[in-house]
């Protein structure tokens, strides 16, 4: 008994000793391995540094050589019997190179933030930021000239001609001549999960050809592609009759003609006014990626039918779940350089034909939960550019007087401020399907009862401009001669009474007898709950309406639920904003009666007016600039009178950036740089960082 206990004890001790020694030796080995690993890493870092230096040198050489190559290129002035509708942008041709001087070299990584994390990077993702990121990496046939609306400058195409059609010389078709020096960058293995085996063909560079543009068009038009952006583009491009590839760098875009009555009452065939800018907006979609599975097999084995991708449902299914939907295949001024949970990076494309398109070495966007987090990062210098909401202005002033900022200023990191007017407006939409807002007088009364000037002055710290209609305040379509309805609660009460909304029971809330039933004027106003300014504005509106005998209940919702109310058209009233497109405006989505009863349409309030429908239809085919403006102004006037929305304001944005970031300016205010510029928003693509 005793000896066995001793034996057990001895055995235990020996075992422990052995285990201890084993652990000790493994520790020694591990630390040796770490040391070797560390040395290897240092070696690699040294090599990478060397590589970077070499690539910088190469870029410098390339930057200068592409600069000279560009100077000597004369493709834009090639002889042809038809005029080129594309011009070279004088800003990139002369102004910017002069500004930069001979010795300029792109330098530094620009750090910015995005609020929210993109779900994926599918080419047709509906998230606005993702579209912008994809645009940075691809580009389109033609661009706007720097700072100017309704212009076309050469981009992926160097010529765009309008030629008479062979089958009907009265009609025109667009001939697009593409640049030959644009390539899709090879994919990078490190951007994919290690479990994915990629075929070697994806690691080669491929020329961007006319087929890629046709593929883009086919993908949009495929009825089984349900991605938000594709569906949205489909409504614009469904008027294309045919998109024909002539050769690898030439394509013809033929738009459907429509019979339209001209000023003399005769019918004539016309294609839509927007056809030119939409043709310029076509983009390439990389066939070498999206027609294939990761293993290099074609998704559709037999794709010899030229319209295969426009119709095939199985391809569309695979496209929605494509293996490359978390990368961006790039051929544009930027190359996609990876995305993780925190950030997404891009580097300058040294091979891009316009060396002035990007003037930094790269750009990195950090994903942030909200504007507060962005502001915190900007304060500490983690990002270089940020925008503020009106309720953060106080914090900015506070920070500008802090010790921390003094230190930053001493280190040449002072904050520069630029205020600009955002291409958007905010409104209260009155749902016309509800008994309260079916009549124009009631809607007008609502507008009269709300003091919009007070909202701008007191709730928005003057960071907004007042508006009267549905177009951008600084677009020619906006009629500045229309005066806003004054703030006049007396008149509002009178109008409500005229419409039969009278306080019958003396409880302070108006009522009306509708179909034998007494209905109190009690409605719900939905607003975005996560925005402080929306909340205070909504609260003010509820109080203001109470003054005229209307009970407005507030309901703050997060973005998904707010969107659902909007799409279902189930709200009474909604406080939201419209981010506007660049002129020429097409008011069809928001105001045409065809969308008034459709779920998900932008005409959420169910607006319907035959005059407005007619103007929208005429605008489609009106080419004369003055007549177009007259039509827009007429449109504006009718909307103003009908008051379907209470137009609240167009916000001003306060943009902050650090002193070392250069070339942020408002084109409209710099006629010396860009004569005729009319865009009031800064272009954040052509900035550079001082060394």
């Amino acid at each position, binding site marked *: 008994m005793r000896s066995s206990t001793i034996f057990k004890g001895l055995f235990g001790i020996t075992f422990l000793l052995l285990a201890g020694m084993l652990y000790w030796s493994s520790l020694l080995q591990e630390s040796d391995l770490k040391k070797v690993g560390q040395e290897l890493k240092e070696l690699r870092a040294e090599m990478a540094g060397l590589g970077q230096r070499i690539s910088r040198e190469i870029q410098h050489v390339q930057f200068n050589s592409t600069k000279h190559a560009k100077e000597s290129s004369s493709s834009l002035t090639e002889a042809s019997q038809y005029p080129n509708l594309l011009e070279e942008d004088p800003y990139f041709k002369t102004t910017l190179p002069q500004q930069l001087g001979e010795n300029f070299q792109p330098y530094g990584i620009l750090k910015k933030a995005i609020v929210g994390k993109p779900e994926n990077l599918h080419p047709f993702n509906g998230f606005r930021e993702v579209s912008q990121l994809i645009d940075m990496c691809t580009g389109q046939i033609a661009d706007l000239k720097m700072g100017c609306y309704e212009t076309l400058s050469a981009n992926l195409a160097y010529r765009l001609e309008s030629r008479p059609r062979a089958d009907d010389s009265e009609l025109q078709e667009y001939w697009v001549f593409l640049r030959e020096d644009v390539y899709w960058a090879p994919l990078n293995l490190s951007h994919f999960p290690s479990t994915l085996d990629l075929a070697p063909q994806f690691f080669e560079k491929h020329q961007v050809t006319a087929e890629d543009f046709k593929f883009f068009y086919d993908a949009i038009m495929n009825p089984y592609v349900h991605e938000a952006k594709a569906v949205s583009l489909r409504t614009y491009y469904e008027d294309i009759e045919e998109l024909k590839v002539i050769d690898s760098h030439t394509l013809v875009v033929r738009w459907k003609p429509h019979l339209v009555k001209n000023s003399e009452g005769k019918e004539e065939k016309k294609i839509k006014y927007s056809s030119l800018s939409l043709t310029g907006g076509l983009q390439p979609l990389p066939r070498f990626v999206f027609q294939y599975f990761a293993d290099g097999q074609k998704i559709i084995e037999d794709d010899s039918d030229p319209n295969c991708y426009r119709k*095939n449902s199985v391809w569309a299914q695979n496209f929605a779940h494509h293996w490359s939907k*978390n990368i961006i295949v790039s051929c544009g001024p930027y190359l996609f350089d990876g995305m993780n949970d925190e950030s997404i990076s891009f580097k300058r494309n040294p091979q891009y034909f316009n060396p002035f398109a990007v003037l930094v070495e790269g750009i990195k966007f950090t994903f942030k939960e909200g504007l507060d987090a962005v502001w915190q990062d900007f304060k500490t210098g983690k990002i270089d550019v940020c925008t503020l909401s009106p309720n953060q202005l106080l914090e900015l002033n506070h920070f500008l007087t802090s010790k921390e900022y003094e230190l930053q200023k001493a280190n040449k990191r002072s904050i520069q401020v630029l205020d600009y007017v955002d291409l958007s407006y905010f409104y209260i939409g009155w749902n016309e399907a509800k008994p309260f807002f079916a009549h124009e007088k009631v809607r007008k009364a609502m507008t009269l009862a709300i003091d919009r000037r007070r909202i701008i002055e007191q709730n928005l710290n003057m960071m907004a401009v007042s508006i009267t209609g549905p177009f951008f305040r600084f677009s020619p379509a906006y009629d500045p001669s229309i005066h806003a309805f004054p703030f006049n609660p007396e008149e509002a009460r009178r109008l409500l009474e005229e419409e039969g909304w009278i306080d019958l029971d003396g409880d302070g809330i108006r009522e009306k007898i509708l179909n034998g039933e007494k209905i109190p004027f009690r409605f719900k106003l939905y607003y975005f709950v996560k925005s402080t300014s929306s909340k205070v504005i909504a609260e003010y509106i509820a109080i203001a309406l109470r003054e005229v005998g209307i009970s407005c209940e507030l309901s703050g919702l997060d973005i998904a639920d707010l969107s659902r109310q909007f799409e279902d058209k189930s709200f009474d009233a909604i406080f939201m904003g419209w*981010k506007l497109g660049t002129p020429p405006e097409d008011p069809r989505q928001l105001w045409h009666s065809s969308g008034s*009863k459709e779920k998900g*349409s932008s005409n959420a309030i169910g607006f319907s007016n035959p005059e407005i429908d007619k103007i929208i239809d005429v605008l489609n085919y009106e080419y004369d600039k003055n007549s177009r403006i007259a039509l827009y102004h007429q449109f504006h006037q009718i909307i103003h009178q009908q008051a379907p929305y209470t137009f609240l304001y167009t916000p001003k944005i306060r943009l902050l950036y650090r002193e070392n970031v250069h070339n942020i300016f408002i084109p409209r205010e710099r006629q010396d740089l860009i004569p005729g510029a009319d865009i009031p928003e800064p272009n954040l693509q052509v900035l550079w960082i001082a060394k």
Partner: protein
Amino acid sequence: MISYIIRRLLLLPLTLFAIIIVNFVILNLAPGDPTTLANLNASGEATRQSDETGATGENQYLLFREHYGLTLPIILNTWIFLSSEEVSQGLQKLAEEKGNMSVQAYHKLRTLWGDRARFIMPFLIKEADNPAHSFARRRLAANLFIRGGIKQGYVGAKLTFEQRALNRAISQSNIQLSDLKILEGDTPLDLEHKVIQLKAWYLNKGGENAFSKKGSARLHTLLFETRFCRYLSRVATLDFGTLRNDSNKTVISEVGKRIKYSLTLAVVPLLLTFAFCQIFGMMMAVHQNQWLDYSLNILFLILFAIPVFVVAPFLIEKFALHKTIPFTHIPIPYSGFHSPEEVYQSYTSYQRVGDILIHIFLPLVAIKYGTMAVQARLARTAFLEVMRQDYIRTARAKGLNRFTILWKHVGRNGSITIVTSLAASLGVVLGGSLIVETIFEINGFGRFFYQAILNRDYNVVLFSAFAGSFLTLIGYLIADISYTLLDPRISLE
């Protein structure tokens, strides 16, 4: 005991099945659409793009719904029992009463009939072909027929020869059908023409015999062509699908990546709580109604009352920000599970353990102080009850020393109560601790599942429900086994 465990394990799938059904139904009844076109502008306000329009009408989210099988009924497919009259009435209502319905109600009804279309195709073609009906009604019937005839192919590269052939046939037939859609501007003549072609397609595919379900096919459709059955058939092969926004990542692999964080944050505190509440419970029980008992009681009451979202920032603010670990110059970390990847990778294994420990110290405190407060009070009651038992008095009378009584007799018997309540919390491992994970920026399950719910990522949400219930069941089994170990009187036979 082994036979008991086997019996329990055999019952497990049945219980799980019941739990899945309940979860599945609740999830499928939850409102909401998967995507939204609204965005935030530069000053953080909700805006929509005026020149962008989403899919309107019944096409909204159709592909998404088809992909996840959301176009099928939830548990039983009773759509096969729809009669010709019901279909007629439904179509008439849709075609002729659109103006009288709210947009929301119309859309709901339209979507419902769209989803039903697959199962009522013989009626639809008859409706479309009936010249007595209005143009609108015939058009609707024809378009619903097309919707019913359009099928989904197999997605992905690794397909068998048969699947490929089927894909080809499906895409051909889909092209044919979508060309026959009756458009807005079509004339009655176009309609006649297209309906003739649709009929030809219908006959070509086997006509009424192929499309109307009879006998066993009917039963098969009733039970198996449902969302639930589709989901279950995948789960049975342990295929939980991929993430909604990245088909390269499977749910299992993403959960696997996060399991170390959540397991550490669940199991370590579980053990710690068990140990601490034993000690405190015992202290309180032994010194019942004395100052120690009172003060601990009050302390635990206060701890229990303070919510975690108050404690976590407080811990960071008071104990971590600008502070170092006592006697060292190492700053106290307050975010992440370990140091940044590159630093962490350079550590040896025991340095890594140390690194993780200092990182999770504050999160552990934040997660467990509340539970500990509750459990300690529970332990006190349990011990007090055991201490009043006859066998304790006997042991004392026998002259056993105080420590042996407390350790061997009171401790062991009292812990049964605590084990029961702790075992139930094993399922919470998967739920993670959303607030703590968010505040301390730990990429665990809590945030993962929360994001999945916001994203309407059905695969992930269902997996979390499934795994959560599985772990809870396993937790109870472990508890049962622990009873027998702690109390020899309990037999599982």
